[in-house]
């Protein structure tokens, strides 16, 4: 209850939560409420490049498709990729970080050296190169993003585990003869869950941003599927005549990333007073 009260007092975090809930809502009911459901795939050349109006709130693109419709349908794609990448990165990074942090020694050292390799290049550049080599559309993009993102998790979990390992309760468990797997997954993991949650929240925003860059470069979902990054790339050839083409998908990315950043900051304040933003 205390946590909820703290959270309710943080206006910025609440705004973030509302944005995210709204995005999730759009993902679920989006396909049913969009004004022109057919515009996901069908071209409509007669109404091409129309400025925003009553019929088309965000205007239409160069295929005459309703931009509002495509921005809404792009939400599910963006969130889906973000959640998929975060889940895959956690699936690899969390157990590895836990085991490396708990056992340490040569194994821990080896795991950390492997993360060094992935962190030796700015993650965006590595993701671009991997996605291109794996060239398998959206699957390749997700795999590339997961491969570049798991070391961040692993490092985080590793250092949290290292400090949790010295706690008295771990010592007590060890002296009672609890197995290491049990200690790591049943006792240490729940104790370091909060920093992981913060990391995921901020990470989701970051992944949405990176996935948009990949989409912008043409690495991601194939063309007719609505995608924010791809829509922005496509809009460039119609500037300066059609400003609405580039504006709305960009605003959608901005809002989604903002939502996760605000919520992440708020959660960090509540969960980890050491890192509390100076207010």
């Amino acid at each position, binding site marked *: 209850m205390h946590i909820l009260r703290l959270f309710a007092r943080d206006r910025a975090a609440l705004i973030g939560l509302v944005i995210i809930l709204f995005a999730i809502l759009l993902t679920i009911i989006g396909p049913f409420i969009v004004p022109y459901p057919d515009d996901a795939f069908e071209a409509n050349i007669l109404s091409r490049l129309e400025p925003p109006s009553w019929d088309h709130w965000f205007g239409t693109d160069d295929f005459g498709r309703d931009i509002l419709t495509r921005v809404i349908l792009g939400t599910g794609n963006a969130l889906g990729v973000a959640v998929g990448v975060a889940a895959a990165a956690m699936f690899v990074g969390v157990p590895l970080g836990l085991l490396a942090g708990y056992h340490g020694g040569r194994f821990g050292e080896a795991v950390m050296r492997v993360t060094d390799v992935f962190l*030796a290049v700015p993650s965006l550049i590595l993701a671009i190169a991997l996605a*291109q*080599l794996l060239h398998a559309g959206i699957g390749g993009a997700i795999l590339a993003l997961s491969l570049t993102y798991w070391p961040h998790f692993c490092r985080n979990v590793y250092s949290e585990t290292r400090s949790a390992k010295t706690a008295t309760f771990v010592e007590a468990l060890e002296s009672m003869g609890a197995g290491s797997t049990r200690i790591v997954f049943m006792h240490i993991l729940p104790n370091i869950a909060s920093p992981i949650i913060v990391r995921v929240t901020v990470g989701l925003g970051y992944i949405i941003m990176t996935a948009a860059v990949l989409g912008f470069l043409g690495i991601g979902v194939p063309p007719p599927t609505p995608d924010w990054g791809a829509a922005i790339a496509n809009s*460039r050839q119609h500037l300066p005549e059609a400003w609405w083409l580039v504006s709305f998908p960009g605003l959608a990315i901005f809002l989604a990333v903002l939502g996760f950043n605000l919520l992440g900051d708020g959660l960090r304040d509540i969960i980890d007073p050491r890192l509390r933003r100076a207010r």
Partner: protein
Amino acid sequence: MSLFIVRRLLLAIPALFGLVLLTFILIHAVPGDPAAVLAGDQATPQQIQALREHYGFDRPILEQFIRYVSQLASGSLGVSYMTQRQISTEIIERMPATFELTLFAMTLATAIGIPLGVISAYFHNRWLDHVLRIISIGGLAIASFWLAIMLQFTFSMELDLLPVHGRLSQGLTPPPFVTGMIVIDSLMAGRLDLFRDAFAHLILPGFALAVAPLATIMRFTRAAVLSTLRREYVFYERAVGYPRLVLMGKYVLRNSLVTPVTQIGLLLGAILGSAVVIEAIFDWPGLGSYAVLSIATADYQATLAVVLIVGCVYALINILVDLVHAAVDPRILEQL
């Protein structure tokens, strides 16, 4: 100090070697003929055959790896099948443009971010602080490639204030090559007209790149200054009656800058990453637009070369940051 540098360099080697191994594994993990994969979708059979012989893809895997490493060690990154030129030459030609842009963006981010962070802390919880914090939170959420296009649209296309793309206006010849950075070379040659033109070309891409690191630096500076302000010596100095500005500029700021400075290495990495797209948008002839070009033409060798080169540059930057850090805080020297 020199021992510190050597140790730091040695520490970077395993990661870079791992990167080479990773790219090697990737080339082989992709199904199909690695030579065909490397050559790209539009390569001729002759080019594929040449690659196969160059890397010895028909030899045992260990021999291939040794060959790959020794090729790289001798500075050969392969031949681009698009231009038929050595990739290393092309990259060296493009490097100065990227340095110019990223250094400008980093300078901009630091020069604006630190003062804004200090101002934000100085007016803690007053309206100016709130406005600056909203701006910094927003700055972190804006996709830099979108911002770049919007800036290009507004300032170049609609208002016609700044050039749309490139490094110099058409018809101008670049100044004699010294550093390869036109802004600096033109000043050294005493050509103010060239300097003005090159600088105008830098502003939009530089700003688009600078926004996210600017916001980060601002946040770190604000937090650091606020926590320094709570120290007892500040309380004491205030009681003694130092003017607030002197206190702020002379005593608080100097003790707060360590955290923001350590961020610069990480931020430069992020800038190098976003430079890929920004350069493509502004037709900036640097490493980033080279990477995008290599993606568009499926020139995998070139893409991997960019990854390796950026990895090396990134490692060097981090070593430099550690050196600066060690110079500021000698205790770090003892830790390594």
